[in-house]
C-alpha cells in the first residue's frame, strides 16, 4: 500500500489586522494581559461578506498552483471548519462553487481544533488505498462574526482570529516517506468545557430570540480555560509520543513540531515536556491568534517559506481542542 504526501501548501489571511490595543477600545482588557496569558499580539479579521470558503478558496488556489495542478485535477475535497459559511450545506460545497468545479466528493469535517488533522487522516487513507490520487484539504475559520467582542466575552474573544490554510496531497511510492501515520482521539465528556451551544438541535426549539439577544450569550463560544489548559498540556505530548512510538522514534528524532496554535504557553510547556529546543517548535500565534482548523496549514506554509522544513526531515503535526479532541500526524518530508 502506497503512502500519501503533502505536495504543496497555501494560506490566506484577511487584510484587516486587529491588535491587542484595538481590542482595548471595545472591551476592558490590556495588551500585557493578552500577551502574558496567550502570547498573542494581533490577529486578522475578515470583512464584507467573506466566509470560510472564500478564504479557503484563496488558500486552495495557492496550494494548487504550487502543486502544478488545476482545480479539476482534484479527486476529493475535505473542508475542516467550525465556522461554516452557512448552516447547511457544508462549506466544502461553497468552496467547490468558488473554485468553479463540481463532481468530485466534497464534505466538511467538524472536529474543531483537531479538524485539520482529522481531515489529513482521511485524505491519507483515500490515497493509501488508491481510491483517489489528489485530495485538497482546507482548514478555514471566520471566528470574528461569532465572538463576543465586549468585556463579557473577552476571555475567549481575544484568542481567536480568522484565517485559512490548504494542502494538496498526492501519492508517495517510497514507503519511508510522506505521511507515516495519523492518530485521532476524542473525549466527549468534556464537550461543554469549550463549546458554542446554540443553535442546539437538542433544545426545543434549537434557536430563540432569547439565545440571540439574552444575557446568557449562548450563541458565543464558552471556555473553562483551566480545564482546557490542563488537558492540553497532557494530551499534546501524549499524542506526539504515540506517533513517535508507532515508528520506534523519540522526540530527539524530530526536526520540527508544528502544534495547533492554541496558546503560546501551552506550546512552550509541551516543548519543555518533550525536551524539544525552541527552534524545533514552530509558533506564529503572536500574529494570528488561534485560527482553529486553519492554524496548522498556515503554520506549515510559513515553516516551509522560512526554510525550516527540508527533504528527509521528520515533522510532527499535533492538535488539541474542543470536544475534547486531539490528534497527531508524523511526516517524513
Amino acid at each position, binding site marked *: 500500500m502506497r503512502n500519501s504526501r503533502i505536495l504543496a501548501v497555501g494560506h490566506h489571511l484577511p487584510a484587516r489586522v486587529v491588535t491587542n490595543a484595538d481590542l482595548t477600545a471595545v472591551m476592558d482588557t490590556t495588551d500585557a494581559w493578552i500577551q502574558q496569558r496567550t502570547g498573542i499580539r494581533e490577529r486578522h479579521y475578515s*470583512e464584507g461578506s467573506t*466566509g*470560510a470558503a472564500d478564504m479557503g478558496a484563496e488558500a486552495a488556489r495557492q496550494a494548487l498552483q504550487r502543486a502544478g495542478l488545476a482545480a479539476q485535477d482534484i479527486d476529493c475535497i475535505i473542508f475542516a471548519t*467550525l465556522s*461554516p*459559511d*452557512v*448552516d*447547511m*450545506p*457544508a462549506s*466544502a*460545497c*461553497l*468552496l*467547490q*462553487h468558488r473554485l*468553479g468545479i*463540481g463532481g*468530485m*466528493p*466534497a*464534505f*466538511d*469535517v*467538524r*472536529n*474543531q481544533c483537531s479538524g485539520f488533522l*482529522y481531515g489529513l487522516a482521511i485524505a491519507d*487513507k483515500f490515497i*493509501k*488505498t488508491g481510491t483517489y490520487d489528489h485530495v485538497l484539504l482546507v482548514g478555514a475559520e471566520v471566528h*470574528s*462574526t*461569532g465572538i463576543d467582542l465586549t468585556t463579557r466575552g473577552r476571555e475567549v474573544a481575544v484568542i481567536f482570529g480568522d484565517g485559512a490554510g490548504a494542502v494538496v496531497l498526492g501519492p508517495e511510492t517510497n514507503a519511508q516517506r510522506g505521511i507515516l501515520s*495519523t492518530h*485521532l*482521539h*476524542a*473525549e*466527549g465528556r468534556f*464537550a461543554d468545557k*469549550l*463549546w*458554542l*451551544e446554540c*443553535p*442546539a*438541535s*437538542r*433544545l*426545543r*426549539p*434549537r*434557536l430563540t430570540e432569547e439565545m*440571540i439577544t439574552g444575557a446568557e450569550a449562548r*450563541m458565543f*463560544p464558552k471556555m473553562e480555560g483551566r480545564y482546557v489548559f490542563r488537558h492540553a498540556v497532557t494530551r499534546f505530548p501524549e499524542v506526539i509520543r504515540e506517533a513517535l512510538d508507532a515508528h520506534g522514534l523519540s522526540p530527539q528524532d524530530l526536526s520540527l513540531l508544528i502544534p495547533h496554535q492554541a496558546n503560546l504557553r501551552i506550546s512552550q510547556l509541551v516543548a519543555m515536556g518533550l525536551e524539544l529546543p525552541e527552534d524545533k517548535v514552530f509558533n506564529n500565534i503572536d500574529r494570528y491568534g488561534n485560527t482553529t482548523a486553519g492554524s496548522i496549514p498556515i503554520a506549515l506554509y510559513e515553516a516551509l517559506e522560512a526554510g525550516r522544513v527540508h527533504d528527509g526531515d521528520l515533522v510532527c503535526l499535533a492538535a488539541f481542542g474542543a*470536544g*475534547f479532541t486531539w490528534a497527531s500526524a508524523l511526516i517524513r518530508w
Partner: protein
Amino acid sequence: MSSAILGFGHHLPAEVDRVGVRRPIAIEAVGPSTLAVSAATQALERAQLTAAAVDFIIFATMTPDVTFPGAGCFFQHQMGCGTIGALDVRAQCAGFLFALAIADQFVRAGVYGSVLVAGAEVHSSGLDYSGHGAPIARLFGDGAGAALVGKGAGRSRIRNVVVHTDGRHHDRFWCEYPASRQHPVRMTIDNFRQGKHFPAIDVDAVRRFGVESLPAVIHESLHAADTKIEQVDRFIISHLLPEVSESAGKTLGISPARLTIPAARHGHLTAAALPVALSEDVASGQLGPGATVCLAASGAGYAWGAAVVTL
C-alpha cells in the same frame, strides 16, 4: 483487505401528528447523539461486539446536538467509548454514504478494525411548523441509524461506495443562517424574524437533480462493484421526495417489490435515512445474511452517492 457491515441498528422516536402528517419526532429535548445510542447498541449486539471493541466513530448529521463540538463527541461519551477518535462529517442527505466511504477506507488501510458509523438527525427542533413553513417542515422526520463496519469475511463485504458533490447548487436546498460569512454578526434578530434559520428548498430543482443523479450513480456503483442489477436483492433509494426514489427505480427497471423508499415510511431522515431503512429491512426479513443491497441517496449540496454491499 475489504470491509463489511457487521451489524446495524436503528431508533425512531414515537410518531407525532404535525401539520396533518405523522412523523417520528423526538419530543424530549435530546439531540441526534442520544437517538444514535440506541441504534448503535443494536448494531453492536448484531455484530456481537461491545463498545470497548470499537476503534473509531464516524457521525453523519446536519443537525448536531450543539453548534460545536460535533455530535460525535457527545455520542462517544454516551457510548462509553473511552478516548477513541470521533469524527463528525457533514454531507447532508448523502452523509451516511460519505461516512461509510470513510469507514471503508480506514478499515481497508488496516488502521482500524471496527468503525462505528452513525447517521442521526433531529430535524423537528429546527423546522417551521406554522402555515408558511409547513410544506417544507412536513417532509422531515427525526431518527437514527448505525452500522458497525469491520473486516470483511467470506462473501460479506462492502463492494463499492461512490460519492459526489456539486456545490454550485448549494443554495437549492439549504439552511442559510447562522452564516459565519455575515459580518459583523452571523445571526441577527432580523435574520431570525425573517425565518432565515429554517431550511429553504427549491423543490423542482431538487426533484430534477434527484431524477437525473440517482440512476446514474447507481449504475456507476454497480459497474465499479462488477455487479448486475439482477444480482442485487434490494435497492434502498433515499430522496427528500418519495416519487423521485420511485422514478429512479422505474428508470433502472427495478420492480417495486425490490425497492425501499425511506421517505415514504418516515419522511426524510437525511443522514439517518439509509441506515434506518437497512436495519428495518433486515428486521422485517426482506434482507438477510448474504443478500446484496444497493444504497443510494441524493440531496442538499448537491451531494449524492451509492454503495453496493453484501451483508
